[in-house]
């Protein structure tokens, strides 16, 4: 009779297996906890940055201060300050008045200016203006900072209704010294331009090089040398590429500093090895029977590769591109070397204008002392993650689309 | 020749060869006994021969079955294919030889008196020749000896000549005395059987040639049997 019940020797094996399984589960659990922790921290810190506080106050557009002919030159700041002070007749000391004024952001005046410029008929009327609060006031109302002027702020709130709204400024402004005005548009545009150029250059070059090396080049010592070097380049610290960019593109070719063009070139060099390696692997993974079938029917080498091998390798190539893209978006060090570290307030119009990229922007903001910038930094990190995830999603969608077709 | 990679294949072919050897041995024995029975008018021996023929028939069935199975299972090629086809053919020839020996033995019942000297010598000679041919050809088959087989093939000519003379002798005998007709007719049949046995041995010889060379013998063998054209008035 065969005994199928468990033996002692097997129990040991099963115990070992169970142990190993539990190690894996614990590792997974810990990783998840850390990730969640990280995410919670970032989102918690950054979430408030997407909102801003406004107070609404009646402002009299005094024709004496604002010239009908040139509405833009009026002293709107004074108008607003007067309107606010009018609400608090009991505040008389200079220091208190100054404090009151400090609750209001510079942008409030600009907003009002824009409104009047758009509609000059408002001159002479009393309008209800939404005035942006300054960073400190904003932080207080968000509950982040305990202010010394808490009493006054509460008073402020009672007279002038304070409302919270989504900060569109965050998306449409360039960088600024004032925390409440600092926006990401410059960095986002800079990132998109830089990475766009990097992919535009890197993808064709990388795929072309991979196709040549895999399908056309005769195996020789040279090709071996090239292969080893490409593999090594993938591991080179990214700052070296920055040095290369500095020496070649800026000093030798004289291209503009801080421009996405240069940044794109440097990043293209950076992601090239990754794309080449991934593309080569993808090309190699295509079953040789397909190519043989094409050759057997009388296709030339080029026809066989481009009509048959390349389409089948596309999913793999896209994977390589995703990896390259992700890396390019997150690179800071080489871009610092080519000068994208400056404070750039204007939003870049084209690839040759000075710009900065998201990771650098995050780096810059994290260095600033104002407390408000802390949440801005976290918010910027959230934006970077969002962009990366959508880029990934697009590439995965494309990959799946091509995979299913075949 | 090296063995087959699949041992069972070799075993199948060996089994066929063994059965054929057995069958051949039996047939030789049957023929010898039949001739002896006829010469000595030994009814007991004759009956033994008649009964024993069943064994040869059974062997032939077994060989055929085994051969068909081997073809189905092994899909034999070349030498192996020829081996099996020849086994089927040879077993058929041996079975016929067995039957002819049995028929010859049967004639013993019909012979009531001793045979005249000159008839008995002729028949004895014919019997010995047929026996020798059968022995030789079976030997040639077992040893795959093509030369020996061809000897048998050609020597049938002699047997045919002997048959012709016995035929004439018997005709003469019958013409001499009508009372001899019954005896002579039986002897005629007996002689004819022996001549047929000789023909079957040549068939076996031809198959041996095919087995070894893979080609059938096209040209006709020398035949001397002219009894079909003989009549009583010929001298």
């Amino acid at each position, binding site marked *: 009779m065969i005994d199928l019940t468990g033996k002692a020797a097997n129990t040991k094996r099963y115990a070992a297996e169970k142990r190993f399984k539990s190690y894996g589960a614990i590792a997974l659990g810990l990783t998840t906890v850390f990730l969640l922790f990280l995410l919670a921290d970032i989102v918690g810190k950054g979430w408030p940055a997407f909102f801003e506080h406004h107070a609404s106050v009646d402002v009299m557009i005094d024709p004496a201060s604002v010239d009908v002919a040139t509405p833009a030159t009026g002293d709107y700041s004074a108008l607003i300050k007067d309107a606010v002070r009018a609400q608090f007749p009991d505040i008389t000391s200079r220091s208190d008045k100054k404090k009151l004024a400090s609750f209001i952001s510079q942008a409030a005046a600009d907003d009002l200016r824009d409104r009047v410029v758009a509609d000059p008929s408002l001159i002479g009327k009393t309008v209800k203006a939404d005035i942006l609060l300054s960073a400190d006031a904003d932080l207080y109302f968000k509950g982040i900072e305990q202010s010394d002027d808490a009493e006054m702020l509460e008073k402020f709130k009672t007279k002038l209704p304070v409302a919270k709204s989504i900060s569109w400024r965050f998306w449409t402004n360039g960088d600024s010294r004032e925390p409440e005005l600092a926006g990401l548009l410059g960095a986002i545009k800079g990132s998109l331009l830089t990475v766009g150029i990097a992919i535009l250059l890197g993808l064709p070059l990388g795929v072309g090089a991979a196709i040549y090396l895999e399908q056309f080049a005769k195996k020789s010592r040279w090709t071996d040398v090239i292969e080893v070097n490409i593999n090594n380049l993938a591991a080179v610290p990214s700052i070296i590429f920055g040095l290369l960019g500095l020496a070649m593109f800026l000093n030798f070719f004289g291209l503009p500093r801080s421009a996405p063009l240069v940044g794109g070139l440097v990043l293209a060099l950076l992601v090239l090895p990754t794309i080449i390696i991934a593309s080569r692997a993808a090309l190699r993974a295509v079953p040789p029977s397909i190519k043989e079938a094409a050759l057997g029917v*009388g296709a030339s080498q080029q026809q066989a590769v481009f009509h*048959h091998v390349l389409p089948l390798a596309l999913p793999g190539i896209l994977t390589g591109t995703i990896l390259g893209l992700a890396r390019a978006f997150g690179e800071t060090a080489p871009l610092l070397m080519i000068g994208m570290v400056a404070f750039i307030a204007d939003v870049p119009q084209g690839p040759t204008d000075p710009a900065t990229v998201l990771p650098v922007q995050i780096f810059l903001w994290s260095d600033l002392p104002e407390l408000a910038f802390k949440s801005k930094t976290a918010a910027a990190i959230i934006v970077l993650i969002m962009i990366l995830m959508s880029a990934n999603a697009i590439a995965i969608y494309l990959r799946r689309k091509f995979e299913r077709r075949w | 020749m090296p063995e087959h990679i699949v041992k069972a294949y070799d075993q199948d072919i060996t089994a066929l060869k063994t059965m054929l050897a057995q069958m051949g041995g039996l047939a030789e024995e049957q023929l010898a006994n039949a001739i002896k029975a006829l010469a000595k008018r030994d009814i007991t021996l004759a009956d033994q021969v008649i009964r024993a023929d069943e064994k040869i028939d059974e062997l032939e069935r077994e060989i055929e079955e085994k051969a068909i199975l081997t073809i189905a299972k092994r899909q034999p090629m070349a*030498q192996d294919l020829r081996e099996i086809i020849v086994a089927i053919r040879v077993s058929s020839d041996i079975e016929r030889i067995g039957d002819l020996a049995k028929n010859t033995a049967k004639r013993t019942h019909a012979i009531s008196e001793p045979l005249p000297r000159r008839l008995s010598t002729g028949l004895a000679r014919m019997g010995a020749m047929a026996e020798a041919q059968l022995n030789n050809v079976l030997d040639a088959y077992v040893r795959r000896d093509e030369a020996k087989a061809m000897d048998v093939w050609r020597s049938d000519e002699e047997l045919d000549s002997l048959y012709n003379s016995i035929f004439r002798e018997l005709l003469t005998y019958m013409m001499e005395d009508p009372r001899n007709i019954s005896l002579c007719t039986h002897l005629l049949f007996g002689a004819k059987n022996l001549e047929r046995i000789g023909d079957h041995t040549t068939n076996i010889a031809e198959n041996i040639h095919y087995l070894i060379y893979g080609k059938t013998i096209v040209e006709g063998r020398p035949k001397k049997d002219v009894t079909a054209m003989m009549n009583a008035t010929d001298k």
Partner: protein
Amino acid sequence: MDKQTTKANIVTGTPRIMVERPTRISARNVDIYYGEKHAIKNLSVEIPDRAVSAFIGPSGCGKSTFLRAVNRMNDTIAGCKLTGEVCLDGKNIYDADVDVVELRSHVGMVFQKPNPFPKSIFENVAYGPRIHGLAKDKTQLEEMVVNSLKKAGLFEEVKDRLHQSGTGLSGGQQQRLCIARAIAVNPEVILMDEPCSALDPIATARIEELIDELRQNYCIIIVTHSMQQAARVSQLTAFFHLGTLVEFGDTDEMFTSPTDKRTQDYITGRFG
């Protein structure tokens, strides 16, 4: 192309049947090397038109190597060298002025594992004629595709799904699709490298039937591991052993009474 009498070449012994068909492919003193390995040794053979010639032999004997030399597929293998002549209708296909792409439109190939392109059935068959510019317009191309599919015995089964993927067919259908693809460019010669080894018996039987029909118009060379298939399908058989052509002759004769002992031993299952 001169009409010669092709004697069934047997290296040892004399041929039993003289085969009266013009030679399509001839090899003269061909040696093939894979780097250091001497894969084909001093091969000379004449292969006739409108007949099926089968190459048999144990693994690694060189039959596939020689087959691939006939349409120069060995060119894609690094380190593969060929000396001697391989001629198609008298012209050495290894001459410097021979365009490999053109050669392969005259010598088609069907592989062991069915490998249709991952495109539609129509595209699979149309690809060859398209790249060689054989069809003047769309209607002619469609005609060519339908004809090829009919000749391959596949049209009836796929006529309402010509634009579905070729990889969705069964194994046997895929192989017939590959055959249709090969004949779409109107080759003179079709090379088949163990076309049925990946198929079940019924699909195999269908392909053998197809080969029987095709041989009336094409010169077919088939490499096969199954001796029974070689016996059923071919008129001439070549037995290869360790890179040498041991025997080449009439199929019927080779399988009932081969001349060389090595052939005998192989086909009766005594070695290899």
